[in-house]
């Protein structure tokens, strides 16, 4: 079954109240191969609040661990004993690393070369030097260390803070051109709309973590029929003379149109993937269960390319971090483990790549209250059957306060891998051609490519 929805209309409407600037970009032809025979999907897992990367991946070599042990002391309440860390040995660097004890699935994936670690990833205007930054010759991202700004900028890939669409939405803009007749949204978020999900022409589909994506029964069949028809008509026939009403209309239209496809997928009692999440109850696990069910029902959408967004919040660990962080990583690890089993069961392990990242890392130097404050460069992860795992991409940070990688003296690492360098290999894997990359990653040309080809 294919969704019938007048997509040209909705795009025209979107343009109607839009600055003329982007229209030219929309009209550009995609370099994507038409009628791609294979199915591919990209999933991004956003760790909201700033994951403490320095307690997620820890150097296990004696010098590296000693540096960690000195700053993240027992007194700080953050220290993880060397013996508790899950040891991993990247194939491309000599340094032994340890994963947070909660990340048992991550370790298995790394060992089986299906998980790649991207080191010191963060937002930059252009490649930075410590001297240049400290002397003020080089610009930092706008409002560095502010959650709201850095979350926006990591998802928009604009360190100047102007762009409000995201790289997921812009990817969807391009992927929708693959199959213009199919109006089912390419991007599905299970956590509402974030900067990442917004495109210029594509309208993200946001699904709940419950099985209900439909208009409910209104008490009698007469009432229900009359109501359903009238709701659709009220939305369809409205004059658009207000930008907020237009936005409600576009989302309402898409929700009403998509519900007929989505409802049976989410209410599939014979789902083979839903039971895999039965023992998990976290919000993230329910989000990933929904993604898994959508993947299971992907034939109903008719799409060959999909983008999914999920979000795990709670990483802003200013105080009492050790327990909170362990709980969060346990949740992440277990939910992704179940998701991985779902992909295996659906036989699409090589067809989906998962990226895990956060708005910033945290200060290496601990804070009163057994927590950490806002940092900058951070570890990110790529998982999947297509990933060239078991390796670390990008250089490891020298964890010295006031050292070569510190933007100050409290361990806020100056990134050496940009969000563009992180995103580009996955976009290329999804089939985005060179000509379209600048549309999705406008600042890509500022960075050297090739050192992060993890997929």
């Amino acid at each position: 079954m294919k969704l019938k929805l007048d997509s040209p209309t909705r795009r025209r409407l979107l343009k109607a109240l839009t600055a003329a600037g982007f229209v030219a970009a929309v009209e550009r032809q995609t370099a994507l191969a038409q009628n791609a025979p294979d199915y591919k999907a990209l999933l991004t897992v956003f760790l909201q609040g700033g994951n403490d990367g320095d307690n997620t991946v820890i150097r296990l070599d004696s010098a590296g661990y000693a540096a960690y042990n000195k700053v993240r002391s027992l007194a700080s309440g953050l220290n993880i004993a060397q013996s508790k860390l899950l040891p991993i040995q990247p194939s491309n660097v000599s340094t032994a690393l340890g994963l947070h004890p909660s990340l048992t699935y991550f370790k298995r994936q790394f060992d089986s070369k299906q998980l790649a670690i991207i080191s010191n990833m963060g937002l930059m205007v252009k490649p930075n030097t410590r001297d240049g930054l400290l002397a003020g010759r080089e610009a930092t991202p706008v409002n560095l260390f502010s959650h709201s700004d850095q979350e926006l900028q990591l998802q928009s890939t604009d360190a100047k803070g102007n762009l409000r669409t995201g790289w997921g939405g812009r990817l969807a803009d391009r992927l929708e051109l693959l199959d213009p007749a199919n109006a089912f949204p390419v991007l599905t978020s299970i956590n509402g709309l974030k900067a990442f999900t917004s495109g210029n022409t594509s309208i993200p589909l946001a699904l709940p973590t419950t099985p209900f994506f439909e208009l409910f029964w209104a008490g009698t069949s007469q009432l229900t029929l009359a109501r359903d028809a009238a709701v659709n008509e009220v939305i369809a026939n409205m004059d658009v003379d207000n930008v907020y009403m237009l936005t409600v209309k576009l989302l309402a239209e898409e929700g009403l149109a998509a519900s007929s496809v989505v409802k049976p997928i989410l209410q599939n009692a014979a789902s083979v993937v839903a039971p895999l999440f039965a023992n998990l109850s976290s919000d993230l696990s329910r989000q990933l269960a929904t993604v898994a069910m959508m993947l299971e029902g992907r034939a109903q959408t008719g799409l060959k390319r999909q983008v999914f967004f999920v979000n795990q919040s709670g990483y802003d660990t200013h105080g009492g971090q050790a327990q909170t962080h362990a709980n969060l990583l346990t949740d992440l690890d277990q939910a992704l483990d179940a998701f991985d089993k779902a992909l295996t069961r659906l036989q699409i392990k090589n067809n989906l790549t998962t990226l895990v990242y956060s708005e910033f890392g945290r200060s290496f130097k601990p804070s009163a209250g057994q927590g950490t404050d806002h940092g900058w460069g951070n570890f990110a992860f790529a998982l999947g059957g297509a990933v060239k795992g078991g390796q670390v991409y990008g250089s490891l940070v020298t964890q010295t306060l006031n050292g070569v990688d510190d933007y100050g003296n409290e361990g806020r690492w100056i990134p050496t891998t940009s969000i563009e360098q992180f995103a580009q290999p996955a976009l290329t894997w999804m089939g985005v051609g060179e000509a379209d990359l600048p549309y999705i990653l406008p600042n890509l040309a500022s960075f050297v490519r090739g050192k992060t080809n993890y997929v």
Partner: protein
Amino acid sequence: LLNFLKLTVVSLLAFPAQAELATAVEFYNTQLKHYFLTADAAEVSAVDSGAAGPGWKRTGGEFSVYLAASDHPAAQPVCRFYGTPGRGPNSHFYTVNTEECATTKKDLGWTYEGIAFYVLTPAADNSCAANTQKIFRSYNGGHSRNDANHRFTADPTAHERMAKRGYQGEGVMMCAPIADWEVEADIVRLLEQATFGPTEALVQAVKAKGLNAWLDEQLLMNVTQYTQLPYWRPPDNAGQCIDDNSPPITPVKYCVSNLNSPKPVAMEFFRQAQSAPDQVRLRVAHVWHQLFIVGNFAQAYAHAEFQQRLRANGLTTYEQLLGKYAISPQLGHFQNLIRNVPELNGIKPNENFAREIMQLFTIGLTELNEDGSPKLDAQGLPIPTYKQIDVGAVARIFTGFTYPQNPGSKSTFWDAEWGFMGDMRTDLDWHDRADKRLFLFSEAGGLVFPYGSTVRYEFDRLIRELIARPSTPPFIVKQLIQKMVTSNPTPGYVQRVARVFKDNGSGQRGDLKAVFRAILLDPEARGARKIDPEYGRLREPTLYWTAALRALDVQTDGLQPYNHGWQSNMPLFLAPTVFGYYPADYVLPVQQIPAPEFGIFNTSEFLNRVNQMNDLLFHNLQPYSTAWWAAQPGVLNSTGTAAPDMAAYLPSMPDPEVALNRFSKLLLHGRLRPAMKKTILNAVNKIPADEAVNRAKLMVNLILSSPDYQVQR
């Protein structure tokens, strides 16, 4: 083209003895890019039906006018001109100015068509007499290309924004009478902005009292209290806190739902929103609670204490309110102020609240002009208000706080248990006493906190100094405007209110009564018709519910409204982060227009809202059972939520159009689109006439589902 439409000569029309006002209706032609105005009902229908050619659409702009000179002693005729065919522009022009009318009559490019309607002329200072409103004129500058066109509007926001489209503002050109429907439409809007939702009775009460007098009375009322629950210490083992669903209900037995949850407070919130008399004070507190977030604790008594703090201080001064927020143990617990200590053993003072008090509660991230626009440096870039080094300094000021003394608990700085009654205690021994230097780079001025001051002195001074900085007034008032009136206020609106924040007229800064009065009585907030394309705000889930409960007179214990908030990402009193339920800086991504509430609106939330109202109206069977709406045995004070009986509206139901007009007035300021009206009446007619309650509910369900209602404008 309009030239074939003969203007009805208004003086020939028959009038009732008691002068009735006519409505001037504005049209815009998308091809010509011209505005057109007429108060002649026949001409309005003709243009509506396409008789004036393609491309004409109503703008939504409407204002009342006199149809005869005798309708008001000072009424003046408005001359109407049409561009002389073959010579002048394809456009109409209107003026009440005698001299301008005479001059234009001599201009061969314009042909006089007669008197369009009557209005009053503005005084020399551009003011309008009582019971009349300003009509603004803007000009497209088209004379040189023989394309002159003017827009006349009562909406000051639409007028101000015409500049973006190349129109020149020409100021107040007429004073138009205000009709009854305009008064009521304005009151409905005020009640949307300033209360938990209009009711027909309240509209009439405000009308009788007068809008200003009613507002002043509201601002001075005693504030409704939350039931103050006693201090309660959770069991050491969280597993001991269980709900035992066997009667009788006692607070100890129903620990999870009733003691260790904001649920009882949230339920009381909905009950009071439904019926409390001090609507404005409670609504103001609701605005503040969306800025002043706390979390990381569950105790009901702590939520009650905190929310009452906001109610009690929400209309004092900003300094007092922010101080009461910042010194609360709820905040100290949430933002890691409690047991924050000076640098010790390589552990630095905690920066959590140090950053957020600047970023979220006072100066914001970038320096602002008085009108809320960012100040720019020589390179055209925004100027940061603070640097990381300042966050570190403020973090040192915020050292030396601990929990208040709780009944029967230990009292020292490190031993004090969680407790949320009263203010945090300070301890100089754990305060960083060294001097602190802030904002030394800033054009807005540096601050030095000398060695040796007390904890509270530095705390109070910091708050006062932050509020005194120039960016605080526009930064705060813009958010207040956004939470009540419109997501994208004009710079002029922000500036007018910011000036009141800076000085209430008696030299006081941050007088919140004056600030809220300025917000609610500003010309951008008031008026019968708001037609600017960027005006309004999406109703947030909480207010979407309270407005429905009030309009439909639903009897509720507040439980299901609270539960539904979870589904809509606005679980009351449990905002996920210090950034609130939704991001204050969310913008529509393509249009780049501020739209905070859209941060939690999406395809799923649209269906939620239709379903939630459907659910409330019909207590439907899917996916919840009707038992869901009944009193819940595990919840204190649970009486259930009744299905609305629609009794008040039943007398109007024999003629569905009459009933629909009532709903339109109460829910849409009387602005029901003709197409939507037709759709709703068609739908209602499919339901048998003897099912009057169902018919009424269907009308309401459809209105509440529409984008027209979802956006409060």
